[in-house]
Each structure stands twice: as structure tokens, then as C-alpha cells.
């Protein structure tokens, strides 16, 4: 993994909030939701401000007890890959957000534990049975000529 890479949260499909160091993450497109805490919560906070991977590793190394640099690097890389596969983050090519990296501050995280993303799929039925189809400029209301006609009731 390129340690200079930066990632951003895949908004607006992904909605997230952090409480007490634990993030709840919802993917509105798939209906899956996730939670991530401890080292993972800290990493998620770092991704929110688009820190490069190298910075995430270094800062986690500073806030955790134990754990070699290579262990931390592996944990960060695995989590980022998992977040990418789940479509929760995408690579960022724009400017950084300019916000402080929340990993710099905050209490010690204790012994290093590889970050773990918990995934829940028990709500996916809601999305599969009653999905939301958001129309864009090509659709309703008043579809352009040539597009499928409305039923007009």
C-alpha cells in the first residue's frame, strides 16, 4: 500500500457518527451498517480528516502501548482494504480537509489491538424490498422525451 495515499469517507452514500470513540457507519446504498471502536475508531476519525496512511500509522504507534510498527502498519492496511471493499471509503485526490487530526489528541488507547470492523446486515431486507430510487435530472418529474413515460395515472 502506498503510504502517502489518503482516503475519504464515501459520502453521501455513507453516513457516520462517532460517540465515545466508537463509530457507527451506515451505507445507504447496500443497507449494511457497521461499528468500529478502539484503535479502529481512532483510525476512522483520522480518515474523516483525510490523513495519509503514513500519518495514521505513526499516530497510532504513538497512542498505543506495545505493538511493533510492522504490526500496526499491517493492521492499518488491512482495515483500509476492508473499508474500501465495503465501499465505505474512496481514495482522495483533493486537498486535505484542514481539520486537526483527532488522533493527535485523546487518551491513550491501551495495548495495541488490530482494528476490527463489525458488519451488520440485518437491515438489508428494508433496502432490498423497499429500495429508494433517487431520480436525477434525467428522470421524474417530467421525463425528457425518449425516456420511459410515466403512467400518468
Amino acid at each position, binding site marked *: 500500500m502506498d503510504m502517502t495515499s489518503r482516503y475519504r469517507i464515501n*459520502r*453521501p452514500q455513507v*453516513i*457516520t*457518527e*462517532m*460517540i*465515545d470513540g*466508537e*463509530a*457507527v457507519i*451506515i451505507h*445507504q446504498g447496500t*443497507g449494511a*451498517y457497521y*461499528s468500529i*471502536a478502539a484503535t479502529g475508531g481512532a483510525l476512522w476519525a483520522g480518515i474523516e480528516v483525510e490523513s495519509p496512511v503514513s500519518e495514521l500509522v505513526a499516530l497510532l504507534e504513538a497512542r498505543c502501548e506495545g505493538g511493533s510498527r510492522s504490526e500496526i502498519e499491517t493492521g492499518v492496511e488491512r482495515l483500509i482494504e476492508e473499508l474500501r471493499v465495503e465501499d465505505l471509503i474512496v481514495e482522495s485526490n483533493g486537498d486535505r480537509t484542514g481539520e486537526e487530526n483527532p488522533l493527535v489528541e485523546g487518551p491513550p488507547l491501551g495495548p495495541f489491538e488490530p482494528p476490527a470492523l463489525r458488519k*451488520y446486515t*440485518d*437491515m438489508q431486507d*428494508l*433496502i*432490498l*424490498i*423497499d*429500495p*429508494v*430510487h*433517487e*431520480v436525477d435530472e434525467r*428522470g*421524474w*418529474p*417530467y*421525463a425528457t422525451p425518449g425516456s*420511459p*413515460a*410515466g*403512467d*400518468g*395515472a
Partner: protein
Amino acid sequence: MAPSPEAPSSGRSLDLLADTAGAFADAAGRSGEVVERSVRIAGHHIRLRFAGAAMVSALTRALAHLQPADGDPDLVVEIWDSASVGGNAPPSLPGKPEGTPDGVRILYDEGPVQAVYLPSERSLSLIDASSGRAWFWTADADGIPHWERAAPLRYILNSWLGAQGQHVVHAGAIAGRDGGVLLVGKGGSGKSTTALTCVQAGFSYAGDDYSLVSARPPTAHALYGSGKLHAHHVTRFPDLMPSVDNVDRLSEEKALIFVASDALGRFDDSFPIRAVAVPRVTGQAETRFSRASPAEALAALAPSSLFLMPGASATTMAAMADLLRQTPCYRLDLGTNLHDIPSAVRNLLASTSERD
């Protein structure tokens, strides 16, 4: 009330609003009467205007407990169906997009104008937040499903109230002497069981499935005075059986109970939320509670709230998180003895008072 958002700038939105308003005016003319009901929700005056009487009962029984309002309305909702007044659907309704399931909800969201069209139910909810006007149309008043009668106009109300800082969330809400409890969790977790056993024990009621909340301070507001129970479960509530509205359709529908219009419970305009509980059915005899993290409660509340409400956004999620950061959260393990549930909830509320 929050400042009005800017008026719609798109010609498509303006056409949709004008054509829908015109269709309602035409329907009102054909029906020969406009029936009005004005209610107060979270301090806002909401006026419902029906073209004819066909939709009135279906959409107002769940609102029967709300205080009447007078003076100038903050939001006017114009309502009609085609079957009773003769063929007046809003123009250019969309067809079901190819390849989508029957239950697809089509969302149009542009600035202050938001519309949700349900092809399966043939119903349209349209709101222009900048003018405080909204419309609800359906093909046939007799075809309004029981879940719509239990929680009428929820897309419109959520859209408008959300802009004022009040959010319709997927939760139940009840209040005892020590304040209110927000009951959060997916369908089947026990929200309705908890809410309805508690209302029978004298708690104030603010809903079992969709509740209106604000975060600063954590408050539940009266919205829907209805309750729903699985047909196989309602037999465990013999006192409620005479009030089941759809007793002849329980083979295909949940039992629908109008707590409000049948005077089965008491209601407050609003109450403080002192605790959030995540119920779950355990199969054990006794009902118990234990502390839960706010993130656990958010995971129980937010996904279904967002998925069930097209157009709900990061703002809604932030409001839910804000509420949970200020409120102690609990797991509520429901026992099989339903009579124990209210006392467990009272003890839960008392424990939050002790913390203060």
C-alpha cells in the same frame, strides 16, 4: 420556527408544484367540499385540507389525540384521492423504474422541494418547505394500507419537521412519572410490546414505531397515537383486542390499534427523554435492564430510521447521535411475563434519577 428555505429555482420543481396544486384544486372543486383539520405538533400548527371526506378518517384517527390549533398555519397539507372525486391524479407520475422491486420508493429531492412516490401504493407525498405547502395524493382512499393509517403523512411531516429540528425516528416513546423512555430497535425487537404494556399501566404514550424527537434537550413530541402488533401476538393483550381496527384482515396485516381515538391511554404534548432503551425478546421469564453504550443504541436506532424514511440525511443521523450523547442508554431484556415490563421500565427510569 427555522427561517424558510429559499424558494425552488428549478423549472421542474415549479411545474411539479403548480401541477399538483392545480390537481388538488380541481379535486376540491369536483368534491364540492374541503374538510379541514388543524392540529398542533411540537408547537407547530399543521393544517390538513381534504378534498371530500373519503380520506379524513383513514388519515386522522392516529392524530386524534393532538391538540387542535388555530390561527395561521405553519404547514398546510392538501389531501385527496382519485377514486372518490373522479380521476384527478397529479400529472406525470413516474412509472416503476425497470428492474426495481415492487416496493420501490421514488425520491425527488431538490432544495426545498421533496417528493416521494410509491408506485405500489400509488401515493405521492410532495412538500415545498419554502412555502410551507404540501400535498398527499393516493389513487383510492379505500386502498390506504394499515401502516399508512398508523403513521399517516410521515414523509411530509419528517421532511418539514426535520428542517425545524424535530425528527421522525423509528422508535417508540413512553413516559412515566420520572420522564420518558425512547425505545429503539428494529422490527420485532419488542418496541410495541413494551410501549403497549406500559400504556396500559398508565404511562403516557407517544408512539410504538415512529416517534417525533428533538435533541436539545432530548424530548419526545406527540405525533402518532397508534400501535401495531403481530396478529399472533395481539392475543396476549386481551384488553386491546376489542380495539383492533382491522380484525377481519389479521391473516395478512398486523393488528392496528388506535390508542388515541379509542382513549386507551394518556398523552402529553411532549415529555423529556430521560433514557433510551434497546429492547430485545429473550424468552426468559423476567424483564431485566442493564447499561448499554450510546453507540450500541445508535446502531439500534439509526439504520432503520434512515432506511425507512427516504430523504433522511446526515443531519438526522447527527441529531440522533446528539440525543444519545446526552441520555443514558440501556438494554431492556424483555421477559415472557408481560405484566412485569412496566415495573422494569419504572425501575429503569428511577435509576436514571438516582444518577442525577
